[in-house]
């Protein structure tokens, strides 16, 4: 809005509209100042911008591969974001992803039915999350160091149990489901998985009792306790969900890459935090939305596809990642300031 369109008084200074008056442009402004909206807008803008790096972009194939590759980050980032919402961190993501992938592959190869193996692996990862939750909620240890320690223990147990066996091959059914070669109603199956997971995760975080309680605990543990929110059990459930989502990501990665070694999760820890931060969540907890996290995850994925297409080196990619996090942080900060000025 330029200055001359605003009414001025005799002294020439602008008469500002009453802030209590909710005008339409004001509301639109507030809508676009939300980090979630900004992330999704940048994500959508990335597609026409992709033309810069390759004349074959934008294409339907690019969108498809973004969604297929983005699936894993969307899944991991749900658990990470849920934990960050409580003011914590989950550093055991890499090992839990590896547990999910290893257990599924191992059990399926010893003759378990695929669904049984998946269920057992998911339960195994849920137990891992549960242990984290118990240590954080009852022993009151800082989540950062608890998950660091449990992750270190799990990683070493996996190494010990597997005795350095070569990578576990993926069961055929799982591979065909997540490799992106099969389609259902013309849409590749991993994209269906993405939609279904995102929907369930959205309902859990944004629409369920446990989701509400998580926001409360993240904002103020003491206030929540006073208000009668069962803080400990909320924390335990949140960490269990985080374990499950890491495990599911591991199972999906096993299918996608048709095999898994124990390092399969190593490259997902920092991106999971990055996606949550870029998606506009407060890293100290209490604020954020899963819709933003999905936007952040998909934005990072399309960015990395574009950078690879442009032939950018790993170093340039990393610098851009870092810069994007900083821009997201500053944008969120400015959005909050204007939001505060508005109300």
């Amino acid at each position, binding site marked *: 809005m330029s200055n001359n369109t605003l009414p001025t008084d005799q002294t020439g200074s602008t008469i500002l509209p009453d802030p209590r008056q909710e005008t339409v442009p004001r509301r639109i402004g507030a809508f676009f100042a939300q980090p979630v909206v900004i992330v999704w807008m940048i994500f959508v803008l990335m597609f026409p911008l992709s033309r810069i790096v390759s004349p074959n972009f934008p294409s339907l194939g690019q969108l498809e591969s973004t969604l297929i590759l983005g699936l894993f980050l969307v899944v991991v980032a749900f658990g990470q974001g849920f934990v960050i919402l409580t003011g914590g961190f989950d*550093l055991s993501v890499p090992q839990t992803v590896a547990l999910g992938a290893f257990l599924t592959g191992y059990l399926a190869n010893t003759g378990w039915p695929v669904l049984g193996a998946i269920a057992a692996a998911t339960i195994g990862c849920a137990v891992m999350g549960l242990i984290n939750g118990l*240590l954080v909620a009852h*022993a*009151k*240890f*800082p989540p*950062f*160091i*608890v998950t*660091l*320690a*449990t*992750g*270190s*223990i799990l*990683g*070493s*147990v996996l*190494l*010990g149990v597997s005795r*350095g066996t070569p990578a576990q091959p993926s069961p055929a059914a799982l591979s065909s489901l997540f490799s992106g070669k099969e389609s259902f109603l013309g849409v590749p199956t991993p994209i269906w998985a993405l939609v279904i997971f995102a929907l369930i995760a959205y309902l859990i975080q944004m629409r369920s009792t446990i989701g509400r309680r998580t926001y409360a605990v993240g904002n103020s543990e003491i206030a929540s306790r006073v208000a009668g929110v069962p803080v400990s059990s909320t924390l335990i459930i949140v960490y269990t969900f985080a374990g499950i989502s890491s495990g599911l990501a591991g199972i999906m990665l096993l299918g996608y890459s048709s095999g898994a070694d124990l390092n399969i999760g190593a490259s997902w820890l*920092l991106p999971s*935090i*990055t996606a949550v*931060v870029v998606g506009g969540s*407060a*890293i*100290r907890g209490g604020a954020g939305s899963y819709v933003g996290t999905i936007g952040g995850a998909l934005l990072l994925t399309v960015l990395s596809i574009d950078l690879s297409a442009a032939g950018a*080196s*790993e*170093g*340039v*990619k*990393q*610098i*851009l*990642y*870092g*810069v994007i*996090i*900083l821009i997201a*942080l*500053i944008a969120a*900060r400015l959005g909050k300031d204007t939001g505060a000025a508005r109300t």
Partner: protein
Amino acid sequence: MTISTISARRRRIPGDLVTAVVIFVVIYSLILAIAPFERNLYSFSNFVLLLMPLAVAVIGTSTVLITGGFDLSVAGTLGLSNVLATVLTSAYPDMGVPITIGILGMGLVVGLLNGVLIVLLGLQAIAVTLASYICMTGVALILLSAPGGSVPIEFTSMFKLSIGGFPAALGALIVLCLLWAYLSRTRFGVTLFSIGSDRQAAVISGMPVRATEVGAYAFAGVMYAIAGLFLTAVTASGDPNAGFPFLLTSFAAVALGMVSFRGGKGSAVAAVFGAGSLIALPKLLFGLQIQDFWSGAILGITILLALSLPLLSRVAKRRRRPAVAAVTDTRSRKDLADVE
């Protein structure tokens, strides 16, 4: 107010320090007890050199933690320092000292940038330092795309100097610890602890909160750069991802050093002993002939045990003398009133 904070802190620190030292002494004496080949100056000297990168890094990490902040850039600065040292010294073998100074400057600048972004723009520490870690890994990857390179012996020997069998590095570490102990008693140090325990109160009592916070990140940046130089001396090569292991081990070492993750409590000297325990642990397992891959599990369990130590002692204290605690509480409140 300030005076009571200092006296309260003086009373608290020794406990943490003693615990950290005891953990280290127990682990190291067990090593000496079961492994005869460790009982000589040469092995000890090697241990010190191996310890240096982590020990120096945790001085920085714990200083930031004490302010209630969080610094993940340790991995980035350390890795970049390692890569810069490798690339520059192989290109200009005679410029060891200027290169060293330049790298320290790099650490300072990165730390200052972190501090300014966090304190002046009010951004979240963990996210800012994550971003700067990722950026610096990128720069390191551009300078050196794969692990390798060779560092001239003149440069590595500068850091591996030994005087009568004793590593000069140990002297450097002791000097750094003394420097930190001195700093923690200056106005800067007192402000550090006050920010960590109650930022609002520190602001109200007119302490230079912002400058001190930026200073903490800058100090930490220099420490990470020094740590990277010592790492270069040990490995004699560069690795753009050299910093990554330190992301986790530095926080593990700080936990073993009983530094609080909530700010306001702890000692960098104790964290150095925590780093010592962390480096000694695999040696102990090797001595016990426990397979290598279990070291992660033992490390995790040790961290959890170290975390539960204050918890246990608090429970024990509460059971033994609930009345005494109440008395000291009122006394300290009276102290406070007197000063005001």
